């Protein structure tokens, strides 16, 4: 058995173990949880040491699976899993656009910061700060700018573009940092060598800095892909875009009390989406393995 197959096997085992632990805890744990230090008559006081196991908090795995097979919203709507996949693909497409915007913006910023140390000193702290602003604080602003832009001009700014831009707000960050570090990564010796060849900035960029940056870029791209998906889901919720998995999440969450297995469909879907996005980028990375040869030797 190859190492990869063994790895996959352990991975599957890990997932099975988690599902087993879920059901085991659900079986053994207290339905209403275990609280210590609660004050009599004071709702919500005390510390909950063991979480609740009732069906609203922890539906059975098989109920979640069965729910995936049942109609999404009653009537003659398609099965939930079909709805999850359709919505998931919508979100994935938007996240992909957000990812690409993030790559363009992040690469530009990273390259500028690498080129001019002064730019790095001036911009990097703000780029870090930018990530401490919650998306939800400005998502509606982006949406408004979008609707105003499409009203004033011939360009029709679709709502998904706002979602993509908001998603790119999360994805540009790892790219900018990765590009900066990556373009900085060539050995001094290699840079000297390019100088002895009287190579200019662009030649050095394309022949040396970019290839050398690839081992830094691949994890950055992967992280950015996962971030773009998370960002797209949150943005959909925030600006109320229809059709994606984010919207599906809150709509089904509204039925969480009477139909507790339903929200797990889009929850699982959104996780799968992130994994697919990150996994796809990882696959792209495999095609660049010649550029990662330095990783073993260095």
């Amino acid at each position, binding site marked *: 058995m190859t190492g990869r197959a063994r790895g996959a096997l352990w991975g599957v085992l890990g997932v099975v173990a988690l599902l087993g632990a879920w059901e085991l805890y659900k079986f053994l744990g207290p339905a209403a949880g275990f609280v210590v230090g609660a004050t009599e008559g004071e709702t919500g006081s005390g510390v909950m040491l063991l979480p609740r196991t009732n069906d609203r908090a922890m539906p059975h795995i098989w109920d979640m699976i069965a729910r995936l097979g049942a109609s999404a919203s009653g009537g003659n709507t398609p099965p939930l899993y079909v709805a999850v996949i359709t919505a998931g693909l919508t979100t994935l497409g938007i996240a992909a656009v957000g990812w690409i915007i993030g790559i363009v913006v992040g690469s530009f910023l990273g390259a500028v910061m690498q080129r001019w140390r002064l730019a790095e000193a001036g911009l990097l702290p703000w780029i870090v700060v930018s990530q401490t602003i919650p998306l939800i604080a400005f998502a509606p602003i982006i949406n408004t700018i979008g609707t105003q832009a499409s009203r004033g001009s011939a360009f029709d700014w679709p709502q998904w573009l706002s979602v993509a831009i908001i998603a790119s707000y999360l994805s540009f960050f790892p790219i900018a940092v990765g590009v900066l570090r990556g373009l900085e990564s060539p050995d001094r010796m290699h840079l000297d060598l390019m100088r002895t060849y009287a190579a200019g900035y662009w030649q050095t960029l394309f022949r040396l800095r970019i290839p050398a940056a690839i081992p830094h870029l691949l994890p950055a791209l992967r992280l950015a892909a996962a971030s773009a998906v998370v960002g797209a*889901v949150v943005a959909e919720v925030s600006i109320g875009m229809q059709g994606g998995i984010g919207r599906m999440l809150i709509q089904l969450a509204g039925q969480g009390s009477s139909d507790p297995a339903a929200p797990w469909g889009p929850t699982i879907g959104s996780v799968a989406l992130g994994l697919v996005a990150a996994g796809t980028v990882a696959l792209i990375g495999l095609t660049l393995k010649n550029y990662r040869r330095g990783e073993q030797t260095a």
Partner: protein
Amino acid sequence: MNAVQSLPGWVRFAAPVVVGVLMLGLWVLVVDVLDAAPRALPSPFAIITEIGLRFGIITEDMAITATNALLGLALGAVVAILLAALAATFRPIDGMLAPLVAAIAVVPIVALTPILNTMFGASSQFGRMSVAAIAAFVPVFVNVLRGLRQTRPVHRDLLRASAASPWQTFSVLTLPTALPYLLTGLRIASSVAVIAALVAEYFGGPADGIGTAIATYAKSGRASLAFAYVAGGIAIGLALFLVTGLLERLVTRRRPV
């Protein structure tokens, strides 16, 4: 190592200030001078006024969110360290955790918070803390696991040659080697934890904290008050980031030779 370090100290300090002033200028231009921004984006002056006016309630809510973020960070870090130690020791556990950690890394807070609130009770801060903990878990786990594997062969040989016990090897070599990685993880996790704790407030739990306030006031036409709270959130994130960054600098001061 880092090119920026070669700039004179005052430039490193002045450059971000200049950029900040430029951005502020642009902001003022768009909002106050051209009046071209959506209403949801208030003038910086209005925000500053609100900060001054509502300083008391803002800091109260900051304390709540910061506590959630800190406790979540601590909890997530402890669990991450324990699991990373297990994964570093037993390959199969590493393999089993890999897909779960990958999944945790991409689960959106929107989906997570209602689940955790229902499991742990919507009237305690614990749901939010656990959201912060889960968000902080990933970077700490990944970095600590990497750190635990960074012991150099020459050091391992040395300890074996010194007939060190497994525990001695761990405490003398493995742990100190992993420490800078742990701090890198903590630094990344610190801002993630703040964001997570803050955003979690949007999706239920006690009606307090920065996130609740941002949403409340953003939705009632008080954009400048909402942004005053956003500034509070940034302050928490930056404070944690700076503290953990400083710790990291302190620990990584000794370059490996």
